[in-house]
């Protein structure tokens, strides 16, 4: 079976075709970063306007690249939430109508389930059960995963998402939106131990996160220090180290609490090299392993939506003729497959 996946929940248009036997046959991503950079953040209306221009052209491209015609497809999956409602509605309306026109089942997909299952697209696939850290510009959460749709929320951020804290601190350091990845690059030249940032909420039990205090700490540090490139790099280093440490401490706790050894990380921040190295060490110490998708499937993409859609399609999901965008949609309310 083959399925088309459509992702338009935020500022990237992602389209892919997944085949049950061959895996991802083709995928395309159009990032709107340049559109939003001048505004210092994602402008929802502009994001929606771009999706309605890019979705069909990218669908044409993935079909052509995979050398397929619509007759070769068995379903159409699209992100139905969570995300920006206007942006989601573009993918939902196009996806639902294509499925209707092609007389195929339509499969609404939960964006975070897509992220969570993205490591399944790699050769080394984690077995259930495992603990997943979903960490991006919009989310930071720890989830126990016992199977497709069997998700138990262990903890989440009470304020900013980790990726959001990265971008906001980058902005304070004078970097363009989205500055998170550039901040990480800067941190490579940072001096260890010159600054020490707090590890929020690690001194008490529980698996929740809080990152807005780190951003304030960064602002105060930046105000006190000189603005040389070296100082900026040192601040970037200390900030990243604090975020990575905090995430690692909570991941270890979650694994211990669940008595599991397999950890999955997904979402934009899971592409962070420093985080990957740290979590490699943490899981090795526990005699376990960390799994993550290739960098291009860490950020929003159509491949993960196609994969998650295939799992849902096989379990018999087929939407009626209505479509609905659900901007807030708790992951643990999904049906088990």
């Amino acid at each position, binding site marked *: 079976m083959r399925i088309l996946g459509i992702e338009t929940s935020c500022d990237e248009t992602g389209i892919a075709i997944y085949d049950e036997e061959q895996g991802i046959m083709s995928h395309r991503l159009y990032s709107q970063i340049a559109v939003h950079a001048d505004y210092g953040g994602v402008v929802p209306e502009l994001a929606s306007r771009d999706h309605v*221009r890019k979705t069909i052209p990218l669908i044409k491209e993935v079909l052509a690249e995979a050398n397929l015609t619509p007759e070769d497809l068995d379903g159409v999956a699209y992100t139905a939430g969570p995300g920006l409602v206007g942006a989601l509605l573009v993918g939902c*309306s196009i996806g639902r109508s294509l499925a*209707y026109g092609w007389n195929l089942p339509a499969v609404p997909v939960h964006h975070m389930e897509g992220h969570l299952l993205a490591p399944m697209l790699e050769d080394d696939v984690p077995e259930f059960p495992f603990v997943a850290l979903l960490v991006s510009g919009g989310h930071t959460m720890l989830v126990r995963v016992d199977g497709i749709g069997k998700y138990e929320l262990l903890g989440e951020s009470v304020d900013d998402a980790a990726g959001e804290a990265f971008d906001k601190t980058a902005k304070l350091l004078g970097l363009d939106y989205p500055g998170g990845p550039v901040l990480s690059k800067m941190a490579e030249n940072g001096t260890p131990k010159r600054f020490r940032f707090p590890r929020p909420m690690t001194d008490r039990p529980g698996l929740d996160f809080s990152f807005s205090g780190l951003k304030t700490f960064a602002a105060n540090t930046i105000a006190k220090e000189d603005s040389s490139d070296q100082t900026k790099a040192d601040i970037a280093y200390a900030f990243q180290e604090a975020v990575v440490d905090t995430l690692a401490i909570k991941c270890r706790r979650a694994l211990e609490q669940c008595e599991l050894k397999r950890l999955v990380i997904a979402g934009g921040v899971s592409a962070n090299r420093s985080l990957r190295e740290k979590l490699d060490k943490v899981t090795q110490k526990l005699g376990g392993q960390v799994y993550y998708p290739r960098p291009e499937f860490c950020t929003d993409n159509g491949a993960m939506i196609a994969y998650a859609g295939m799992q849902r399609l096989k379990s018999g999901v087929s939407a009626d003729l209505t*479509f609905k965008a659900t901007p807030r949609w708790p992951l643990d309310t999904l049906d088990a497959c």
Partner: protein
Amino acid sequence: MKLLAIDASTEACSVAIYNDGNVYSDFELCPQSHSLVLLPMVDRLLKESNSQLSDFDALVYGRGPGSFTGVRIGIGVAQGLAFAADIPTIGISTMQTMAQEAFEVHGQKYVNVAIDARMSEVYCSSWHLTDKGLMELATQEQVMPPEKFSSLIENSGYGVGTGWQAYPQYLAEKCQNNEEVAVLYPNAKYMIPSAIQSFKNGETQPADQAQPVYVRDTVSWKKLPGRE
């Protein structure tokens, strides 16, 4: 000629099928719920008219202006249906659609359209009837305060659209129907006459070029200092 027309640009949702002179249509007020109404409505009319998507020569869509989200739902559906059925598209102005209804139903030849655009503004334009029986744009489609639009209207015409309902004081001044606004929303049925003409003129576009005309292109988003 067979045409399938859909619109979701305003608080209304409508679908019409033109089949060599026969018209099937449906219209429903459904603010904020077009995504629940539009495709089932298309499906019903296809069954009622015993037709399939691939039978159509073109897919006609309301291109705006109107609610940004509503316009995009209509266009998303238009793109999806047209691409799936491999048929071209024709975009029709929501304001033209309303002006056309003023002619077809109320016999009017001069029409002033004002759609409530929130933020104390209206999407507006004036239209006049051509000898082909089609409404033609007499002024540009713009967005502006209702008092300004009212002051720009030279000849009193027939007022249509929610803008006149929201700002009735200007309707009394400039429109013949100085009390009642009979045509409030676009109805896909009245997109058909203009779409037939466009199709005959070869003015069709592939599915991915079915795009909104927002008219309002800057609202609440502001660029960073120095990037304006």
